[in-house]
């Protein structure tokens, strides 16, 4: 018995010694890790942003009418060879086919010996997918990245600084065809992290038939008050007057942003060092959003997801719906039995903005075929290619030279492109933007359930945002 006990004590003693050794090793390894790893992934020295002489000069002509027309920069470069990977989130069920067209044109017009392997990531988990790909050390050479996430990747040194490439004098004319605001979104942290190509505008869909029947078609968007009044007037047992996304999983902040921007606020202050949700106008805008979500004119908060909201609109059961332009394709392909159109949120006290976010084509720092990757990006961003793709998926372009001929057969998209895109105020492309939005959004969800006033919600959001910035 005593022998058994002493053995147990001995085992226990050994166990503790082993644990102590493991802890000690862990601490030593952690302490040494700082030096060991300093060379394997350091952020590259950031070069200066391109000089002002290369700033865009505005409209320079119409979009190439024939999509088979070679891009202006599409000089055949037979010396390019090898394989490059290209990954992008889908904007259509036909995403692969549409990109195969672009790749076929690339091989026919620019680089016949470069094989482009196209793949897609899933939007709901795209950050995780891209993180894993970058961590693998062999990510696709070219990535389509949205402004919500690329700054964090740029900060961690996995994107190639394309400042020299986009300032190449041979590409100056093409660069000038891309709007300055789009370049502003791509140029952060002292570098240029991609070529802006597409944008998604977050518009409102309205059921014109219902609004006309109620005599509200011309007045519903005069002000926030008139929109709330219209939503109340249109709500019946079968119809919700208003709908907007409310959960972080559905990126609900896109529908919240214009009201905050119209009140002069933003997630971060101008220097991105603290919460930017300041001022009475911001509080009032938040209170309006709470009021419209607690007025009984929307589906129960959190009960319907992104697609469900759109399906309700398409079924004629939501009169005024915040959503996004790719659904214009769905409405055109399967026309509902009512008249519809697109609109922007009503004007606020400090502006009349529209929310949009934008995508850039980037090159991975780990790419071993950057030259071919750059040629492919130039090709993808060229007027014929990006114009055709934008029309196929109902997204906006950031080129100014193709607007006249774009969306000729799509009045809703013409309206979005001509009336809303110029009013777009995008997000602040900070490395912390997605974490700040994720951290603050539960406060908004809570407020939309009537549990907080506008003032309390803004205070709670700022507490969360400042917490993220404090690290």
């Amino acid at each position, binding site marked *: 018995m005593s022998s058994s006990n002493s053995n147990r004590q001995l085992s226990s003693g050994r166990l503790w010694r082993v644990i102590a050794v493991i802890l000690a090793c862990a601490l030593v390894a*952690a302490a040494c*890790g*700082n030096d060991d790893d300093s060379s394997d992934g350091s952020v590259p020295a950031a070069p200066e942003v391109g000089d002002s002489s290369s700033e865009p000069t505005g409209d320079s002509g119409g979009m190439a009418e024939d999509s088979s027309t070679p891009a202006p920069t599409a000089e055949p470069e037979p010396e390019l060879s090898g394989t490059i990977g290209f990954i992008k989130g889908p904007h259509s069920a036909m995403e692969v086919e549409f990109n195969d067209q672009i790749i076929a044109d690339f091989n026919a017009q620019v680089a016949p010996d470069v094989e482009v392997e196209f793949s897609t990531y899933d939007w709901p988990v795209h950050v*995780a997918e891209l993180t894993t790909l970058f961590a693998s050390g062999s990510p696709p050479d070219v990535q389509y990245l949205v402004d919500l996430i690329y700054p964090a990747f740029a900060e961690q040194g996995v994107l190639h600084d394309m400042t020299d490439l986009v300032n190449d004098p041979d590409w100056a004319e093409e660069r000038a065809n891309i709007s300055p605001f789009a370049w502003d979104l791509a140029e952060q942290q002292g570098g240029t992290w991609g070529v802006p190509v597409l944008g998604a505008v977050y518009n409102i869909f309205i059921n014109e038939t219902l609004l006309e029947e109620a005599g509200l078609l011309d007045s519903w968007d005069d002000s926030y008050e008139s929109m709330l009044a219209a939503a109340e007037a249109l709500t019946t047992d079968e119809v919700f007057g208003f709908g907007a996304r409310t959960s972080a999983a559905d990126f609900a902040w896109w529908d919240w942003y214009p009201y905050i921007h119209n009140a002069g606020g933003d997630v971060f202050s101008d220097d991105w060092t603290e919460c930017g949700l300041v001022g009475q106008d911001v509080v009032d805008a938040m209170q309006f959003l709470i009021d419209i979500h607690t007025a009984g004119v929307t589906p129960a908060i*959190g009960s*319907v997801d992104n697609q469900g909201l759109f399906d309700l609109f398409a079924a004629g059961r939501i009169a005024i719906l915040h959503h996004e332009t790719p659904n214009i394709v769905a409405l055109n392909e399967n026309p509902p039995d009512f008249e519809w159109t697109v609109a922007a949120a009503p004007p606020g006290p400090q502006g009349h903005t529209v929310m949009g976010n934008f995508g850039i084509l980037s090159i991975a720092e780990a790419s071993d075929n950057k030259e071919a990757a750059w040629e492919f990006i130039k090709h993808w961003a060229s007027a014929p290619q990006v114009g055709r793709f934008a029309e196929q998926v109902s997204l906006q372009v950031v080129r100014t030279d193709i607007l006249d001929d774009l969306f000729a057969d799509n009045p809703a998209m013409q309206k979005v492109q001509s009336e809303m895109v110029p009013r777009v105020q995008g997000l602040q492309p900070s490395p912390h933007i997605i974490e700040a939005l994720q951290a603050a959004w*539960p406060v908004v969800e809570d407020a939309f359930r009537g549990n907080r006033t506008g003032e309390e919600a803004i205070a709670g959001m700022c507490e969360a945002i400042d917490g993220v910035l404090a690290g």
Partner: protein
Amino acid sequence: MTHIDPGLTGAQMTLSPEEHRRLAKRYRRRTTLTAYAFLGPNLVAFVVFLLIPVVWLLVSTFRTGGVLGPAEFVGLDNWRDTFSDPLARTSIRNTVVYSAMAIPAVFIIAMILALALHAIPRGGAPIRVALYLPTLQPAVVAAFIFTFVLHPDFGVINYAVRWLGGDPINFLGDTTLALPTIAGIEVWRGTGFWTMMFLAGLTALPGELYHAAELDGAGAIRRFIRLTLPLLRPTFYFAVIFATIVNLQLFDSVFALTDGGPVNSTVSVSLYIYRSLFLFGDIGFGATLSFLLVVTVLLLTGLQTYLLRDSK
């Protein structure tokens, strides 16, 4: 090899103490080596896929970065952040509350079903198959199924509620209902597995004890309390530990159904770890939460082992 003369008597065949020790030692060595040979592959897998990652996890708790960018030693910062982070506390509370709801519920339902199935002398196979089917559904499929069950607008349950004159219930959009709803879905998925587990345990119980108890006049409830429950102790021991480990790692159904919402009411520890590591790139913080989860599971397993030990 010891040679034994067939002409020796029993007393003469007795081994000398020295020879006995030698043979015993050889036997022990051989059985030990055989045991290690069989354990070897598992030991390698244990070291490579568990021990080293856990040690590396512990290392990562004292650093930041290290996946996409360079690692940097930050001392105890991650630990301080973890214990002061309100969402970390919320995620721990949600996970514990969820486990406290789901584990007892699934055990009680599964035990009732197992007892019922055990009492069916013939033809139970189709019922067993039907009961086990939900366990085979991936979380995403289960989420899709429950969309049609729970949806406030067109869900079956709310259709019935409206038909009965009630207001629709916002199961996954209500902050007080979302976590119990997720627990209910997980109970639905897990019931088949645990029913089969308990049924297997019941089938293995010695029938003669029940016959004897019956002859002694013990009723069904008394037999269940005095015989079934104590005899199923090894099954319960495995079940409690396994269920605790699985449920503390709640992720897929939350990810598919609510993404932690509404208002963080369903954020689980695993979901927060995922967000920290893959969405925010906060490797040190995520590693610290992960290490805490590992330690918690180990401690709870140890506690359960102690409490459920076979007291002689």
